[in-house]
C-alpha cells in the first residue's frame, strides 16, 4: 500500500515537472481558447449555483441545440476571417438556401433529398459568386458581401413575398428535431463538421495555406500558391456551411420562415472573435469559435433563466463582444503569453 502511494506521488510529481505536461498546460492557459473555455465553465457554474434549473437536461439540450446552428455558420465565417477576408452574406445565404430548398420541396415535386442537395448547391453558388467577384474583379470582400447580403435577402422576399413556406414534407423533420442517443441531430452534424474542418485546418496542405494566406498574402503569392483559387474555395465552403445551417433550421421549424438567418451575421462574427479569431487574418481555431458561440448561447439562456429583462439581451451581448476583443488586443500588446511562460518556467 505504502509503496503504491509513494509511486503514485512520484508519478504525479514527474507529470507536473515533465516536459510533456507543461507545454500543454501553458498553451492551454495562454491560448485564447483556453481562456474562453475557462470563462465558459465559470459562467455555467455561477448560473447553475443561482438557478439549478440551468443544468436540467431539458435546458441544456435546448441551449446546445440553439447555438449549434449559429456555430455551423460561424465555422465558415472563422475560416474566411483566418484567410484575411470577411463574409457578411452568410446569414442571407443560409436564409436563401433554406427557403430555396423548402420551396423546391413544396412546389417542384422534387424529392426532399434532391431539394436539400439543390439547397446546398445554391449556398455553394452564392459563395462562389462572392469569391469570384472578390478575386476576378478584385473588389474588397467587405463591400462585395455587403452587396450580396442585400441581394440574397431580397431574393428571399421575391420567393416568399414575406409568407412562410408551409406543408414541408414530414420526412425531413428528423433533421431538425430527431435525436441520436439523446443528442439532437443538428448537434451531431455540427460536431461532425467541427471535427472534420478542425482537422483540415490543422493538418492539411489546404488548411495551413489558409493561415499562411491570412498571415501574408504576399508570402502566399511569391511561393506560387494560387491565391484566387483558394479564396473562391473558401467563400464557396462558407456558402455551403451557411446553407447547411439554413436547411437544418427549416427542418427544425418545419416551415420555410423568411426570417431564417436574418440575425445570424453578428453572432457568428462575435463567436469567432470571442473565440480568438483575428479580424486581420492568420489566426483562429474552430474550437474557439464553438466556445464563443456557447458563451453567447449561455448568456441568452441566463438572461431568460435568471429573470433578467430580455430587453437587455443585445446590450449585454454587445458588451461581451467588445470586452473579448479588448482582452485579445491587450494580450497581444503586452506579450501576456510570454509572461505566463516565464511564470511557469520559474516554478
Amino acid at each position, binding site marked *: 500500500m505504502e509503496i503504491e502511494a509513494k509511486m503514485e506521488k512520484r508519478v504525479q510529481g514527474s507529470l507536473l515537472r515533465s516536459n510533456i505536461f507543461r507545454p500543454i498546460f501553458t498553451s492551454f492557459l495562454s491560448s485564447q481558447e483556453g481562456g474562453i473555455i475557462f470563462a465558459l465553465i465559470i459562467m455555467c457554474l455561477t448560473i447553475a449555483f443561482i438557478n439549478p434549473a440551468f443544468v436540467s437536461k431539458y435546458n441544456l439540450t435546448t441551449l446546445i441545440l440553439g447555438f449549434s446552428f449559429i456555430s455551423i455558420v460561424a465555422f465558415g465565417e472563422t475560416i474566411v476571417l483566418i484567410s484575411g477576408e470577411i463574409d457578411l452574406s452568410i446569414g442571407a445565404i443560409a436564409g436563401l438556401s433554406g427557403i430555396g430548398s423548402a420551396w423546391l420541396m413544396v412546389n417542384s415535386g422534387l424529392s426532399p433529398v434532391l431539394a436539400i442537395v439543390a439547397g446546398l448547391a445554391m449556398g455553394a453558388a452564392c459563395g462562389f459568386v462572392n469569391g469570384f467577384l472578390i478575386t476576378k474583379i478584385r473588389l474588397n470582400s467587405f463591400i462585395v458581401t455587403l452587396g450580396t447580403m442585400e441581394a440574397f435577402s431580397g431574393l428571399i422576399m421575391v420567393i416568399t413575398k414575406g409568407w412562410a413556406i408551409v406543408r414541408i414534407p414530414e420526412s425531413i423533420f428528423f433533421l431538425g428535431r430527431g435525436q441520436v442517443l439523446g443528442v439532437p441531430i443538428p448537434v451531431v452534424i455540427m460536431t461532425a463538421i467541427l471535427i472534420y474542418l478542425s482537422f483540415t485546418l490543422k493538418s492539411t496542405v489546404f488548411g495551413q495555406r489558409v493561415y499562411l494566406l491570412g498571415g501574408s498574402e504576399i508570402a502566399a503569392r511569391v*511561393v506560387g500558391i494560387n491565391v484566387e483559387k483558394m479564396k473562391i474555395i473558401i467563400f464557396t465552403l462558407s456558402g455551403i456551411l451557411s446553407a447547411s445551417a439554413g436547411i437544418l433550421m427549416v427542418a427544425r421549424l418545419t416551415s420555410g420562415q423568411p426570417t431564417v438567418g436574418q440575425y445570424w451575421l453578428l453572432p457568428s462574427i462575435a463567436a469567432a472573435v470571442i473565440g480568438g479569431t483575428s479580424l486581420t487574418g492568420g489566426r483562429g481555431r474552430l474550437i474557439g469559435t464553438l466556445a464563443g458561440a456557447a458563451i453567447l448561447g449561455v448568456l441568452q439562456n441566463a438572461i431568460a433563466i435568471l429573470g433578467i429583462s430580455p430587453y437587455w439581451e443585445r446590450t449585454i451581448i454587445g458588451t461581451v463582444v467588445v470586452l473579448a476583443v479588448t482582452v485579445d488586443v491587450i494580450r497581444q500588446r503586452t506579450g501576456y503569453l510570454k509572461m505566463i511562460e516565464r511564470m511557469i518556467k520559474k516554478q
Partner: protein
Amino acid sequence: MQDKDAMVLMKTENIVKKFGGITALNKVNFPVYKDEIVGLVGDNGAGKSTLIKILSGVYLPEEGEIFFKGKKISFKNPRQAREIGIETVYQDLALAPNMDVSMNMFAGREFVSFDLKILKVLDKRKMVQEATHTLKDVLGITISSDAMGLPVLNLSGGQQQAVAIGRAIYSQPKLLIMDEPIAAISVKERGKVLGLMKKLKERGISIIFISHNLDEIFSVVDRIVVLNRGCLVRDVKRQDTCLEEVVTVMLGGESRNN
C-alpha cells in the same frame, strides 16, 4: 564570343516595362553567366526592383524576351519561375509572420504524408526535419526545436533571413536573386550571408545580388551591372572597374575612363 554564349545561363533581350506613362525599364539586355555572382546596382528608381520582379515572375514585361539555358521562356507567376529554377530572396523577406519555420520554408511545395486528393495531409515531422537540416547544414544556423514551432515573428532578424534564404535554396535553383538580402540584419550576420553567397556560387548557383552598399557588392561579385533610369548603362567585370566609377555611372555621369 561563342564561348561566352555557351556560358550564358539567362539573358533578357530588349525588356520594356512601363507603369502608366513612366518607362521603368527601357530595352534592357541583361545576361547572367554560369557560376557567377553579378551585382545589380543603381540609384532609387533606376529599375532594379522592376527587373528582378520580371525575372522572378511577379511582373510581366510589355516587350522583350527572356532566355534561360538557351531556351525562350515566359512565366505568368512566381510558381512558374520557381519550377524553371529561378528563386528569389525578397527585400522584405515575404514570410508569413504567423507561420512556423517549416511552413514558411515549404509553403507551395509541402511534404504530404498521405494524399486523398481533397484531403492532403501534411507531413509536419518531415517538414521540420528538412527545415532544421537545411538551416544547420547549408546555412550554419541553428534554431532550437522549441523555436521551430513558433511563428517566425518570434525569431531574430538573422534567423528570419535564414528562413527566407533556406526557402529559396532548398530546391537547388540554377539562379538565385537576392534583393537587398542584408539590409535588415546585424553586421555579424551580414558577413555570414556574404560568405554563404560565395559558397553557393561554388555549388554552381548563379546569383544576382542587389544592394545599396557598394562595399558589400565589391566584396563578393564577379561582375557589376549598372542601371540608370531604366537603361542598362554599364556591364563590367569587377577587376576592370572601381567604386568611384560605379558611383559616377549610377548617378548618370560619364566615367573618366571613357
